[in-house]
């Protein structure tokens, strides 16, 4: 099966890599790029453990062919922290015990991060809707709601103290 070179942006870095036609983005990330933070829970889009951002939107990376990422930007769990500093929601997840075994956590965090990017004060219902495709077997979802609302509060405080962002 013929490989094709694709170029895309991964966690802020331009990457050029060969991909096979039936290779999924998940496999490319984990096997070729060594980004094992994103997990494979089912390979069938049912569990959300493999969720990454594709052009800013959460998708199941097991349901995207690697070649389809050509020209796009991809953000994985490894790309949430900036300059070694955790994003508030990463930190509040730990503080609120929003996970136990942690296997669902990367995908869950990406879905929550995406929500916080577009909603600075999400309600419980909005959070649950945002994670309705992320399956957690250990912990349920209350800790996630708590963590996201805590992170949202922190982000609002930071943003207001820094002034409104320039458009």
């Amino acid at each position, binding site marked *: 099966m013929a490989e094709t070179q694709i170029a895309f942006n991964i966690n802020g870095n331009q990457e050029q890599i060969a991909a096979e036609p039936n290779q999924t983005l998940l496999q490319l990330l984990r096997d070729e790029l060594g980004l094992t933070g994103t997990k494979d829970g089912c390979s069938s889009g049912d569990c959300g453990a493999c969720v990454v951002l594709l052009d800013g939107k959460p998708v199941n990376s097991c349901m995207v062919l690697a070649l389809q990422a050509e020209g796009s930007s991809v953000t994985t769990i490894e790309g949430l922290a900036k300059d070694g500093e955790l994003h508030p929601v990463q930190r509040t997840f730990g503080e609120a015990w929003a996970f136990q075994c942690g296997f669902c956590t990367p995908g869950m965090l990406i879905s929550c991060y995406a929500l916080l990017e577009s909603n600075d004060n999400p309600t419980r219902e909005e959070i649950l809707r945002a994670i309705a*495709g992320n399956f957690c077997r250990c912990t349920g979802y209350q800790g996630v709601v708590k963590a996201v609302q805590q992170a949202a509060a922190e982000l609002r405080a930071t943003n207001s103290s820094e002034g409104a962002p320039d458009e």
Partner: protein
Amino acid sequence: MIAGGTDLILRMRDRVLSPSLLIDLRALSLGNIVLGDDELCIGTSVSLSQVLENTDTQRLFPALVAACREFAGPPIRNRATLGGNIANASPAADLVPPLGAYDARVVLRSAGGERVLPLLEFFTGPGQSVIEPDEILTEIRLPLMPTLSAATFIKLGQRRSMAISQVNVTTRLSIHEENVVSEVRIVLGAVAPVPMRALAAEQIISGNALSDELLCSAAQKAAEEIMPISDVRASRSYRVEMTEVLVRRALFATRDELGRNATDG
């Protein structure tokens, strides 16, 4: 052909399909929603999230938006397309009944030209359609509804997200001033080899004034018209029972909404 890939990739992984050539439809600019004078055109590569967020679909085709809202979960909706849901031709396809209730037509294009047909005529059996090997689905055309119209989508699933329909139902009523029904559509999913209209049930309602008894008897009729199977999600008899329940609820909800629109308008 691959668009969102949420069905196709599964079948490739399970080796049900091993395509030697895959064409990514994203390159074909089929990702637009365009409102014209008398119809809304949705490209087949439009994702369900796009349909959800679009103000024209929200305003003009709320039952379609409702179906998108309950479909799977956000990561799937960001990839799954209307075209894919149609082309996959699953009897349980959630988006087909609402599209059908809005009288959607689909456009099939080949090198030789294009043809347009009513959506519900596209399907011939589970996973089967009239599409030719040299054709692709490019567009869904939704005619704007008559002024006094309302539609309702109800899905019965085993959980509130990430669920395949046990039964899904879409009803649309368009009425004249005197509350007489000018157009009625009752479109059902997951209860027959293809998404289907309950024609005999529609006949009971069409041209008549809306009343509780009318709606109830239409719902009962609809349950007699279906050809469901038993599978891991539901038994045949449950599907029959639930069709009556959901059609009745949907018709009543649609009628209520007509009443609200009338007083608002």
